[in-house]
């Protein structure tokens, strides 16, 4: 464990954007008002699968107050095999365009078909209702197993195998020999429903296509450069012709990486000659943006009498929605990622179905597969009479453990997380009474690198201005500023961060993959080192020496010394401004392990589950701002509990989502949860100067199986599908 002491890292300063966000001054995407701005609205398909026979926008275009109407026919011609990278995955341009405005066929209920720009949102909605579409409804298919069955309706021509877009396979060791060596073998199949990230701010985009050919887009996005690149690809113009200004963002969780409205607003603006603002309704968000895949996962695990896993096999079928890309890859890579297993076979299927095209959601793909692994292990622990955490400890992945998909782990905190769970007050406390159960589970997420850029300019008063390009979804301005402050020996409050548009900072990847505090943090660290190097040269000039030391915020040489602020005041006299910058593309992202202990009580009369006590444990590597690390752990835990107990896309047989409001899509409220205890474990990541791993995602992996295991102990029977809501509990 690191014994480094820090001045700033590990403290809890007030976030830099805090005052703006508690006073209503912070400008989110929908808050933008521009002169001559008009408003867009989208026509969406009522059918889950249909051919578009006729699309007539004449009446809409003639409606008073309408400025422009667009359909897929307004996309410029472009090669259809072009690939566009999204940061957490890539896609075919034809799929990207097809999802933004349908062409030929609609593939899900909610699929965008056409869009209108009008003097206000009400008139735009009136005009949308005047668009005439003749559909030829086609049979729809809504689940992965149904879509894989012989004779299933096909969504696309030319996929590898019917509706299967991709097959992944990871294999190590000798599976048959491994199972032959097992004392206990358990095999189970578990289903999860489609769920949504549920960010409170709907997608929005405002675009202005200038007469000089440049397109300016203002939007709430997790990645301004990804939004720029995707919009440019869809519009078939060079990336330099698109400038994206990231507005404040009201949640994303992976769902605000893809573009939906941005290119449509741009096309409308080009026709209207005015800025066009588009904001989704909540139903649009549910039916027209990417939820996370529903899935069917089968896991078989064999364990010997000593509690050592001898073999593990997984079969995963994930619903991609309308276009390929179901995140089955990460699901397959994480299914046994917490464990050191010699004999493994994993097969994954990416299956298109007539549901919205799925998107990333916090550790995308991992909760689905961990649900199966962690509930099967729970059964095995019970059969062998071993404590469930002890069974996990005996098999925990360590430095050097090889995952079935290839990589060997560097330093990883799996043992430390499980030991922290075992030692916690919660795990050692009794349950409060009958109908109660305690469940545990652990989970893994990779975390990613990707490029980031940062610039620091020194002010004469001893503060610095930080220019960066990472959307701040949960306090990253501060976690980044703190890393710069630590290097420079100044206070977090002495760093003034600004997030700027894509013309004004070097390329910076998405705020996703738990990468921002890690990768953009590394860019800020390097930029601060650049500042230190330049400032040392200034001090050397002033003192007529060559050797200048810098530590704890003080420049010194012999008997000379300057604080950072004292030297900053002398920059004018020593050559002018000091600006440090860095661009990084780190390879050293460190995976994070999370664990959950949860106590539930089930009402035998109603099947309602009350959450009594929750403890989230996670390896942060190094917690830069512990309050916001706790916040990530608490937020991921709450989302996972909602996913486990209540949330689902309730689709009727025709593929219409029947619960597309927050009243019926039941996310946890303040009344549904207790306080969420947190234990931050710190096993430093060797790939980051402060040991940061990234904490945004792994915490959502354990709740599904932990809830399932707790429910089993409360009611004595195992459920094999999520959500585990009152109806399914009563119908057991």
């Amino acid at each position, binding site marked *: 464990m690191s014994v480094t002491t820090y001045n700033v890292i590990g403290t*809890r300063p*007030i*976030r830099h*954007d*805090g*005052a703006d*966000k*508690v*006073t*209503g*001054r*912070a*400008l*989110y995407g*929908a*808050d933008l*008002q521009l002169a001559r701005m008009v408003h867009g609205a989208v026509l969406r398909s009522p059918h889950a699968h249909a051919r578009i026979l006729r699309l007539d926008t004449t009446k809409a275009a003639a409606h*008073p*107050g309408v400025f422009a109407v667009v359909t897929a026919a307004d996309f410029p011609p472009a090669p259809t095999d072009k690939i566009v990278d999204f940061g957490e995955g890539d896609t075919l341009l034809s799929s990207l365009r097809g999802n933004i405005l349908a062409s030929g066929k609609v593939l899900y209920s909610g699929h965008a078909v056409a869009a209108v720009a009008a*003097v206000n949102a*009400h*008139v735009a909605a009136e005009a949308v209702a005047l668009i005439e579409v003749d559909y030829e409804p086609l049979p729809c298919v809504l689940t992965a197993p149904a879509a894989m069955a012989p004779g299933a309706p096909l969504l696309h021509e030319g996929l590898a195998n019917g509706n299967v877009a991709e097959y992944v396979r990871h294999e190590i060791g000798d599976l048959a020999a491994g199972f032959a060596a097992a004392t206990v073998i358990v095999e189970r199949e578990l289903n999860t429903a489609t769920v949504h*990230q549920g*960010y*409170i*701010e*709907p997608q929005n985009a405002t675009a202005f296509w200038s007469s000089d050919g440049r397109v300016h887009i203002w939007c709430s996005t997790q990645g301004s450069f990804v939004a720029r690149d995707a919009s440019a690809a869809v519009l078939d113009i060079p990336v330099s012709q698109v400038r994206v200004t990231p507005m*404040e*963002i*009201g*949640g*994303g*969780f992976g769902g605000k990486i893809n573009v939906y409205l941005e290119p449509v607003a741009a096309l409308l603006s080009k026709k209207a000659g005015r800025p066009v603002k588009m*904001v989704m*309704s*909540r139903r649009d968000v549910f039916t027209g943006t990417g939820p996370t895949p529903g899935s069917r996962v089968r896991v078989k695990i064999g364990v010997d009498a000593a509690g050592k896993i001898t073999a593990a096999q997984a079969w995963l079928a994930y619903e991609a929605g309308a276009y390929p890309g179901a995140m089955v890859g990460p699901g397959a890579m994480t299914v046994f990622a917490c464990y050191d297993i010699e004999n493994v076979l994993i097969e994954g299927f990416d299956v298109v179905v007539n549901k919205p095209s799925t998107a990333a959601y916090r550790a995308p793909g991992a909760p689905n597969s961990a649900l199966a692994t962690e509930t099967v292990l729970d059964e095995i622990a019970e059969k062998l009479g071993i404590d469930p955490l002890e069974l996990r400890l005996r098999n925990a992945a360590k430095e050097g453990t090889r995952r079935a998909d290839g990589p060997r782990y560097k330093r990883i905190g799996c043992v430390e997380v499980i030991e922290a769970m075992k030692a916690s007050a919660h795990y050692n406390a009794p349950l409060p009474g009958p109908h109660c159960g305690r469940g545990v589970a652990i989970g893994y997420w990779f975390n990613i690198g990707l490029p980031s850029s940062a610039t620091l300019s020194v002010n004469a008063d001893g503060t610095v201005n930080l220019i960066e390009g990472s959307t701040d*979804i*949960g*306090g990253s301005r501060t976690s980044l500023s703190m890393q710069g402050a630590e290097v420079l020996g100044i206070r977090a409050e002495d760093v003034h961060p600004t997030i700027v548009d894509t013309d004004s900072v070097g390329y910076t990847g998405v705020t996703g993959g738990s990468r921002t505090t890690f990768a953009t943090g590394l860019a800020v660290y390097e930029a601060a080192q650049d500042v230190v190097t330049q400032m040392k040269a200034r001090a050397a000039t002033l003192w007529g020496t060559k050797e200048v030391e810098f530590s704890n915020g003080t420049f010194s040489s012999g008997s000379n010394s300057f604080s950072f602020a004292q030297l900053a005041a002398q920059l004018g006299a020593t050559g002018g401004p000091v600006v440090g910058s860095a661009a990084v593309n780190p390879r050293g992202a460190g995976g994070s392990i999370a664990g959950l202990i949860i106590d539930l009580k089930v009402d035998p009369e109603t099947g309602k589950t009350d959450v009594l006590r929750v403890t989230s444990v996670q390896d942060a590597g190094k917690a830069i*701002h512990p*309050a916001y690390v*706790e*916040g990530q752990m*608490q*937020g991921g*835990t*709450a*989302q996972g509990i909602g996913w486990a107990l209540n949330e689902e896309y309730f689709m009727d047989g025709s593929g219409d989502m029947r619960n597309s*409001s*927050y*009243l019926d899509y039941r*996310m*946890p*409220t*303040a*009344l*549904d*949860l207790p*306080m*969420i205890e947190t234990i931050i474990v710190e096993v430093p990541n060797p790939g980051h100067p402060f040991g940061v791993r990234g904490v945004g995602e792994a915490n959502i992996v354990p709740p599904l199986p932990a809830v399932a295991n707790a429910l089993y102990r409360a009611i004595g029977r195992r459920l094999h599908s999520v959500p585990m809501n009152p109806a399914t509990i009563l119908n057991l």
Partner: protein
Amino acid sequence: MALKVQVQTTINNEPVQFLCEPRQTLLECLRDVVGLTGTKEGCGDGNCGSCTVKLGDRIVTSCLVLGVEAEGETITTVEGLAHGNTLHPLQKAFLEHAALQCGICTPGFLIAADALLQKHPHPTEDQTRFWLSNNLCRCTGYDKIIRAVQAAAVEINGAPQ
């Protein structure tokens, strides 16, 4: 397009007149007509609480109130909570307790919590959770919000007797 109606109100202690179409919600009027965009829209059907404002002596989801219904009313939005440059104790507590991540739900929570503390100076955790259950937050799991509200209660009303 319908003819616009003139509405006279008091918003954040200032007299405000605005013109709106009868079909425009109070939320639209606040954001798009008056220019107070601190009040947020999350769902448009009264289920997320992001657009919560104080109307007269009660709190409402302003997406379910028409602008014309605000005639003669007194309205408080998040922009009206601070006194000049001095933050309201709830605003201060939300910052000190890291009770926001993305911040989109924060204005609604602040207005709802302010009303809670006026009705219950020392709310229990259960009272706080029940009162705030009309406001959805997807980032925090509510833990730090509940703690911030309870800390603000002590700041405003002293320790419970």
